């Protein structure tokens, strides 16, 4: 057991650090959060620069533009981009960390060739279409219908909490293809071209006052059958592949943000009791980093650890603790959201962390049942 990176990894770190210094020097200021067109440009420009420098898709196969680098270099990348305060995935979140890895694992060679290189080059932005108004925690109860009509699925229904719905070129879409089957057995995973007729996207205004999500209305949208990932009615299994990436590394991006935020917050924290609280938060964040390192080590060795079931639960709650501390420390400076630092905005954003991607309650059910072996609740 050790935390020492190899000489290769350290060489990778040195190159990356030098590259980041140059690349960040002429980075344009980050656009306002509700200017989605500008955000798309800013995030995809950065992605393209990463790609050109050989830092995109570190753990993706080489034949689709990835680097097939060892997992330890992924960690070095995260450490260095955190340290340098480089942009992270931004609007490329679903493509790079959700839909993309799913296509890597489950897609056909044609699907991989069509999408993976474009995602890595920042030429294709993805959005999410999983949740529905009636299907939140009980995602498998989803009702958006897809009826086979020759070479197409005709899709009708409604999706909500679509991340990047305003600007997505493709959506990862869960549909019900067999309404007669048990709910987990009748679902199919589709790639939805967002320019098809019959799709309406409505921004959804959140507690931040901006539209971090969208609602999706689908009215007899004809989706080509070749957009299906995995077999028909096997979509729940594919979804669990997607969600395993979410549990694995996708939320490291939030951890990157939280690590930066706590460093920024520390100088404001002067009261000794508050500084002790800060220490507990830092200790937990450091431990979540350590757990991430353990996960990466274990997955590289093919060991199925319990860490992936714990990361999101742990980091979401520690982020909220940090947010609460920030608000107490700043006292009346919190009365304006855009006042002192990003702390108020981040506190608002973190309200979603224990809800999105499986509430903390659902996470505890999964951990209790799948990892600890406790009996299922009657349902």
């Amino acid at each position, binding site marked *: *057991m050790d*935390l020492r990176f190899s000489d290769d990894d350290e060489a990778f770190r040195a190159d990356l650090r030098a590259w980041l210094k140059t690349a960040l020097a002429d980075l344009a200021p980050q656009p306002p959060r509700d200017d989605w067109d500008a955000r798309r440009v800013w995030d995809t420009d950065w992605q393209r620069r990463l790609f050109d420098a050989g830092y995109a898709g570190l753990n993706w196969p080489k034949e689709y533009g990835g680097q097939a680098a060892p997992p330890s270099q992924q960690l070095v990348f995260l450490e260095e981009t955190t340290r340098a305060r480089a942009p992270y995935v931004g609007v490329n979140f679903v493509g790079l960390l959700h839909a993309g890895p799913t296509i890597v694992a489950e897609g056909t060679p044609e699907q991989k060739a069509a999408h993976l290189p474009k995602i890595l080059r920042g030429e294709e932005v993805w959005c999410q279409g999983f949740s529905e108004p009636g299907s939140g925690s009980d995602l498998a109860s989803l009702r958006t219908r897809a009826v086979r009509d020759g070479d197409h699925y005709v899709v009708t229904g409604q999706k909500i909490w679509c991340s990047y719905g305003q600007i997505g070129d493709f959506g990862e879409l869960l549909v019900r293809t067999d309404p007669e089957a048990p709910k987990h057995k009748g679902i199919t995973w589709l790639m939805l071209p967002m320019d098809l007729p019959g799709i309406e996207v409505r921004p959804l205004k959140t507690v931040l006052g901006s539209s971090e999500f969208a609602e999706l209305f689908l009215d007899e949208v004809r989706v080509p059958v070749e957009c299906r990932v995995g077999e028909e009615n096997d979509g729940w299994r594919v979804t669990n592949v997607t969600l395993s990436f979410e549990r694995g590394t996708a939320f490291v991006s939030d951890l990157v943000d939280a690590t930066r935020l706590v460093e920024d917050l*520390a100088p404001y924290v002067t009261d000794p009791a508050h500084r002790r609280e800060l*220490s507990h938060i830092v200790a937990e964040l450091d*431990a*979540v980093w350590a757990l991430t390192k*353990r996960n990466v080590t274990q997955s590289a060795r093919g060991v199925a650890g319990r860490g992936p079931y714990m990361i999101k639960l742990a980091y979401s709650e520690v982020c909220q603790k940090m947010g609460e501390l920030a608000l107490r420390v700043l006292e009346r400076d919190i009365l304006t959201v855009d006042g002192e630092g990003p702390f108020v905005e981040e506190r608002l954003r973190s309200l979603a962390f224990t809800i999105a991607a499986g509430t903390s309650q659902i996470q*505890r059910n999964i951990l209790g049942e799948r990892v600890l072996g406790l009996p299922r609740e*009657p349902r």
Partner: protein
Amino acid sequence: MNFDLTDDQLALRDGIRALVEGRFPMDRVRDGFDRSVHAELADAGVFSLRADGFSWADAAVVFEELGRGLVPGPLVWCFGRDRITSGYDASLAGSDLVEFLGLVDDVVVIDPRRALALVHPADVVAAGEPEGWPLDPLTPVWRTEKQVIAGEPLDLPFADVWDQGALLTAAYCVGMADRLTEMAVAYAQERQQFDRPIGSFQAVKHICADMAVRAELARVATHAAACVLDDPATGSRARALAGAKVLAGEAAILNGRSATQVYGGMGFTWEVDVHLFLKRAWVLETQFGGSDHHADALASTMPGSHA
């Protein structure tokens, strides 16, 4: 980087676990610490790991197993020493109470200038009985009669003794937190109310899930601290150790409380082992710096510190 137990460490863990389960079942643990406990652990090499070429990470793996088994004794103070040893920081409040004092050969005293001395127990306390009613029935305490005793100076850096003690104590706490999770999960699987196992109810299941997360975060924090002691270039020793002691101490205490709750009325009995774990956790919180001490230490590594 391989931040997981190596094959050798897995073998070490399994070996010490088998030893603890074989030699120290709970009915023996309940008899408390004596010379035979020390002798069997010493024979197994538990206290001489460093001298035998093992790393701090290896030592953490071993102490985690001792904590799982709630093996009693001044085990952290005995680490690295041939003779049965206890110790205390004479500058701390409450330092007139010292664990296991009447049962040891040597006492390490840390004086207020942070110099270390080795003292004969008879020079600290007159021969006699321990204080009547220790919080942890397996951790008897003696009241010292003199505050600071002149002894044989020990040429050990305070920081090393303190940090290594904090690490091994944290590892022991991780083992307790992990074992408490297993005990609570097993009870929640077996105990029936409303015609079903109580572990099927979210109210109970979620307590168990939180216990597991606490134990795991404390474990990786402790392993990270051990790795930093082994290889100082891989992190901040102060920050890693403080984080480990804070999280491991909290995990042991909170998991002790949680296990008591899951066990319900049985958790409040002397017969069920949970209280012994919780009481040990409270005792260990006072050793090698409590959570407030380490929180202050960690805060001093963060921006804005005036320390």
